[in-house]
């Protein structure tokens, strides 16, 4: 399955088909008629036929749809909300987080903890930043609220590990310095939408 199919969110343009279901009968006689009709048409066996046909096709036609997961992976949606990532500034390589604490404040499952201090230049510096992934529900509020696009949701969904503390530290989530060139901007939560320009209306100044 290609990424385009994921990105197509225009509901209604897909090839959907309306089922011509008859209304549920209200009277007892109507119900009996429906039962009799279904019994005569052997509707139950249609289901059996379909599954048997699929089995024959799968066995002898090779129409298997299994994705052998650890060996091959499907692309995930760009808006997928998995383990968080902390982004860096592209120019200087410094992390974007300004320690405002909005993400800590808005977190509805109360799983973000951050601690800040002033460094020698009297700039705010993040001294400690952890996310408790045992509690995180991946709602995306932190990414949505972040003014600097510093915290986003990444696509790393394979999060089995020996310890709960894995992935949870600031350094683990931060883009490594040597991979700075590959840092992708996040088009999902918190990012301005592609049609943002059209959505902006001029503030009426003349009252």
């Amino acid at each position: 399955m290609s990424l385009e199919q994921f990105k197509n969110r225009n509901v209604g343009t897909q090839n959907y088909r309306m089922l011509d279901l008859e209304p549920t009968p209200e009277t007892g006689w109507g119900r009996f008629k429906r039962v009799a009709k279904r019994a005569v048409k052997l509707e139950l066996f249609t289901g059996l036929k379909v599954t048997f046909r699929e089995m024959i096709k799968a066995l002898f036609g090779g129409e298997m749809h299994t994705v052998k997961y650890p060996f091959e992976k499907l692309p995930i949606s760009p808006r997928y909300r998995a383990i968080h990532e902390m982004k860096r500034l592209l120019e200087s390589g410094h992390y974007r987080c300004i320690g405002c604490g909005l993400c800590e404040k808005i977190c509805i499952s109360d799983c973000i903890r951050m601690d800040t201090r002033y460094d020698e230049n009297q700039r705010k510096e993040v001294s400690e930043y952890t996310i408790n992934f045992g509690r995180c529900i991946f709602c995306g509020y932190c990414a949505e609220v972040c003014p600097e696009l510093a915290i986003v949701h990444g696509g790393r969904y394979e999060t089995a590990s020996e310890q709960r503390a894995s992935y949870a530290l600031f350094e683990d989530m931060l883009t490594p310095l040597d991979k700075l060139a590959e840092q992708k901007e996040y088009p999902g939560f918190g990012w301005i939408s592609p049609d943002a320009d059209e959505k902006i209306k001029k503030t009426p100044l003349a009252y």
Partner: protein
Amino acid sequence: MDGYIIGTIIKAVLILAIISALAGFGTYIERKVLAFMQRRLGPMHVGPYGLLQLVADGIKLFTKEDFIPSGANRLIFMIAPMITAATAFIALAAVPMLPEFTLFGVTVRPIVADINIGILFVLGMMAAGLYGPLLAGMAQDNKWGLLGAARTAIQFLSYEVVTGLSILAPIMIVGSLSLIDFNNYQSGGIGDWLIWKQPLAFILFLIAGFAETNRTPFDLLEHEAEVVSGYATEYSGMRWGMFFIGEYTNMITIGFLASLVFLGGFNSWGFLPGGIAIILKVSFFFFLMLWVRASWPHIRPDQLMWLCWKVLMPLAVINVTLTGLVMMF
């Protein structure tokens, strides 16, 4: 006398071993068939074609931590799975598996206890099997378990009536309760099969059999979407495995009953010898259960009761009455 006892013990042990192995193998078959019907591959990576998956499952079940919830009734919680497994195997004792054969000069009758009320004994033992899920659900301190136990009680109690009534008409025709007599009655080829005389009873028995073995259109006891796992919510490891073995053994028993009563039993079938014929028939019923599981959705509890008491039971009573009238005149 001593030889008889030793022979019986050997037969019992053999049946216990073979059927529990088959029950384990049944889980593999079920996964594979369901996978193919959903265009999947099923277990593939343990052994050739995933055949050793059941060994892996067995190792997992045996080594898994076996815990008992703190609020549960320990003793009842521990014996409930054994009831399920034990009643399932005891029910098999009165079922003739294969035709007589001679091995090392000894004629072997592959039935543990040939009692003259065989079919009623099998049904009665399967009726007693309802205590496994029932007690399991009531002993664990869990609401889902209690709901599962309540569903066990209503489902098994109701469908026992249909099983009994539907099998009554063939009993009237054959005039015996022994499964071997059933088999001998249909010894004259396909035309003699009881399914041609009792098609309605066959269908009713099959539906009730699905309900009694807790198979899919009627798998209300442990339906994940409604009651987490029903009576088996708190069970893990080998105790849960015993429930599983009991369920699959019951499936095999129902398959044997349906083949013996309606489909000509272990009489030789054309060029096929009887032993292979009955294995084919039982395999077909086993496959039918998986096939139905892959195809049909399951029903609501009120629909289950409606089906039992307002459709199947009147049909069964009418069937018995008609059979009696036809036999009288």
